[in-house]
């Protein structure tokens, strides 16, 4: 039998159904890998072994009775941004290092109802603010492909845990690329769905109009399975959209002949590593071979997406993070002398430097005298960018380009320069600003480090994205690569 950790979710699900192994065995297998590898990778902040095994035993009963759904008994890891009832939920921050959520996030609840088992909570950039997982209060996560390198961020723990096969899949969130960029840097399939497709209830907010939950998996097929169980309307989230969730697995194999692929002129122009760009072009040849047509499209306002994002996201975060005041939950400073001191020190000591920078940036761009010049201006440019995408999707079915300008970089290489760090997200931010679904899939290696291919679709085009990704994965084997040390 193939090693359990070499199997995709879909393969493991088939194995469980055929009773080739039990959910308890499967869960034990991954827990033992976590025990072995997590200390060096720092991918999980909290490991919920006991609860996982109890849930696995329950899943086995269901499976034995012929009950349960397609995901029953499969273990995964949740990004520690999702509230989990009775379990520590830290959001990678000292502020919440003692926070036990009193409720489950909608996606946690939905997956648990679908029989999915949570192995633990994945490390992340503090409050999801970062592109390297170096801003976590719990220390950086290492990239399983090279322990000196970052795994990307903010869902760096979610990426590392799957890349090292300590879990077959994980959940993540993506505000400016936080699923896609780590997926690219660790050779995984990451999908950020359309804004409103997955409920944000119980997902600790960074930037409410950009945040969206998704998955990090070994394949597009796994993404289809897992996303199908997470997606859907939630009356507790006013921005959740009430449209039916299609069976994403049903359309995975549709042929791509005649597919119109848009190549974003702006993506290939500058900032893209030469060798990286070649891998993307190679991938496009695979699509051409399948009958897809390549069309160059231009999104003239796209180059402004980084500055736009760094106004909108901090503005929203500055307000979203005001609730952390040391009163009802979270870190509270020692012996506050008065109310102001309680606020300033609890927040000053509880938040890390990057979070404080973003809160201050956001406070500044919203403040009297600067609102129009920064915030309102950014919102207008956001509309221009969204309009650019809309025009493009009038001509093409999907847009394809790089996910990240470079493969994984060294831990510590960019921490002192926020601007260089921010430019990591140059290709991913646009989809967040426009609320579009987007994926990253593995498309090769550069010097032993994975490179990702980004596919962006129109609103609610997840099924098409997954289909486009899956067909590529039928033609290539990049997504089956596992780092040497974790095979």
């Amino acid at each position, binding site marked *: 039998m193939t090693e359990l950790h070499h199997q995709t979710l879909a393969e493991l699900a088939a194995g469980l159904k055929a009773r080739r192994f039990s959910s308890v065995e499967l869960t034990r297998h991954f827990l033992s890998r976590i025990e072995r590898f997590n200390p060096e990778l720092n991918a999980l902040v909290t490991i919920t072994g006991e609860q996982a095994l109890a849930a696995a035993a329950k899943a086995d009963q269901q499976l034995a009775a012929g009950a349960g759904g397609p995901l029953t008994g499969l273990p995964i890891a949740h990004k520690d941004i*999702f*509230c989990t009832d009775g379990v520590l*939920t830290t*959001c990678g921050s000292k502020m*919440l290092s003692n*926070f036990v*959520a*009193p*409720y489950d*996030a909608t996606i946690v609840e939905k997956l648990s109802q679908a029989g999915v088992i949570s192995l633990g909570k994945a490390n992340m950039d503090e409050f999801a603010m970062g592109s390297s997982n170096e801003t976590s209060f719990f220390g950086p996560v290492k990239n399983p492909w090279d322990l000196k390198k970052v795994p990307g961020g903010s869902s760096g723990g979610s990426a590392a845990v799957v890349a090292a096969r300590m879990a077959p899949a994980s959940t993540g969130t993506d505000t400016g690329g936080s699923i896609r960029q780590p997926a690219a840097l660790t050779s995984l399939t990451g999908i950020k769905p359309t804004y409103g497709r997955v409920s*944000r*209830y*119980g*997902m*600790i*907010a960074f*930037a*409410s*109009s950009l945040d969206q939950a998704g998955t990090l998996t070994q394949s597009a097929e796994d993404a289809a399975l897992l996303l199908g169980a997470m997606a859907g309307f939630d*009356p*507790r*989230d*006013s*921005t959740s959209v009430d449209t039916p969730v299609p069976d994403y697995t049903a359309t995975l194999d549709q042929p791509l002949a005649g597919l119109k692929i848009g190549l974003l002129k702006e993506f290939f122009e500058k900032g893209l590593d030469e060798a990286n760009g070649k891998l993307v072009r190679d991938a496009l040849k695979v699509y051409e071979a399948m009958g897809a047509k390549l069309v160059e499209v231009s999104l003239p306002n796209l180059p402004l997406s980084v500055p736009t994002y760094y106004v909108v996201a901090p*503005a*929203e975060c*500055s*307000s979203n993070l*005001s*609730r*952390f*005041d040391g*009163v*009802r*939950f979270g870190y509270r400073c020692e012996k506050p002398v008065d*109310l102001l001191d309680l*606020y300033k020190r609890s927040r000053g000591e509880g938040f890390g430097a990057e979070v404080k920078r973003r809160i201050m940036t956001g*406070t500044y761009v*919203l*403040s*009297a005298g600067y*609102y129009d010049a920064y*915030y309102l201006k950014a919102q207008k440019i956001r509309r221009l960018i969204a309009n650019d995408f809309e025009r493009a999707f009038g001509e093409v079915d999907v847009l394809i380009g790089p996910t990240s300008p470079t493969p994984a970089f060294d831990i510590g290489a960019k921490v002192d320069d926020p601007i260089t760090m921010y430019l990591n997200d140059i290709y991913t931010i646009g989809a967040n600003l426009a609320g579009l679904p987007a994926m990253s899939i593995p498309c090769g290696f550069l010097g032993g480090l994975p490179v990702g291919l980004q596919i962006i679709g129109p609103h609610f085009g997840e099924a098409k994205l997954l289909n486009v990704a899956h067909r590529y994965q039928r033609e290539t084997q990049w997504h089956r690569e596992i780092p040497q040390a974790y095979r």
Partner: protein
Amino acid sequence: MSSFETVIGLEIHAQLATKTKIFSSASTAFGAAPNSQANLVDLGYPGVLPVLNLEAVRMATKFGLAIGATVSQRSVFARKNYFYPDLPKGYQISQYEKPIVEKGRMDILLEDGSVKTVGITRAHLEEDAGKSLHEDFQGFSGIDLNRAGTPLLEIVSEPDMRSAKEAIAYLKKIHTLVRYLEICDGNMQEGSFRCDANVSVRPVGQEKFGTRCEIKNLNSFRFIEKAINYEVARQIDIIEGGGTIRQETRLYDPDRGETRALRSKEEANDYRYFPDPDLLPVAIDTAFIDAVRRTLPELPDEKAARYIEKFSLSAYDAGVLTASREMADYYEAVLAALGAGQEKLAANWVMGELSGALNKDGIEVTASRVDAGRLAGLLKRIVDETISGKIAKEVFESMWAEDKDADAIIESKGLKQITDTGAIEKVIDEIMAANPKQLADYRSGKDKLFGFFVGQVMKVTGGKANPAQVNDLLKRKLAG
């Protein structure tokens, strides 16, 4: 003093009478144990999200229609950012640039009998804050977030009022209206209806407004009037003393009867309003607005106009009777049972005996010991001359005390009016016989003695003789 003109604008916060909070499904009931009605959304827990209460939108729409305002088909919730312990999220969700109600008006009756229109700039939906309890917990304040998230309608007037009396007249009209509309219970003690006043003064004839101060914590009509008058005098004093007014927020201290600057609000606020990304634009269509319009009751001003026109009541009486929907309902129930033509009689009784008794017992008309049907029953006995108005007051007192209807009391106490001519004539004859001197004096021209004879008849009959008949018969008999 007379060389200054006062300018007042009011911001009224009316708690909407919904069952649940504006953005959460926790109860809004008053008086629960601390924090027992603050759910995860009200507490601003990480990850939770607001969902708008339809009823709050409906109530705001109702108010907008009642003040002849524009009800916006698209309004937007924004975040007002500031740190305060009773504000769990560090921002208040409120409507800023696009409120649900704009440009309304309210007519008020001035003391000289003239009518003045006060402009209402806007009314917007927002969430209430919690409460800080200042009793000492070893140097700490306690925070109760039960009230956090209760829906508020903030009703902002134009600076159209020129005296504390006008401000009170406007405030009372709004108070009456929100209760008519059943969108707010109007309870000022519990804080369901609160008011901040923006007060400034300017030399008479000057067009530019003076610097204003905002007075907070005004929770009774009496305090509001006192606070405004105090503030006006304070500002005039400063100006006349050569000083300038500083724009600030001031708190009214009812114990000292004065206003003082609020320490916590001293620093210039920068609320950093921006559209709340967790909430989408509120869209309401004309069908919704029309449906709400159909639920509007007859409004107080319409009702008063009808009373004046159809019932020939004075503007004052019509105003008193329509000051609360319950009172007007009571009055109209009396009329319905009594039949047409007795509107003035009914009005006098409702405003007189009934209101007096209610006030004495400190109860609302809805809890009246004499219901409208019974009061009508009593008035019928006046109309059909079974009893006199004077006896009726006696009967009313017994009805109030004994929980019986008028006829039962008239019967058991034998208060039925004597209308039998023969019986009254017999009494008159006896009195004339017993008072020969007075009779002689009367007949010699002392007309004033007529009253003496009336008094004697009433005394003998225990007030039950029909006064009109007594008059007629006496006149005839005394004339000889």
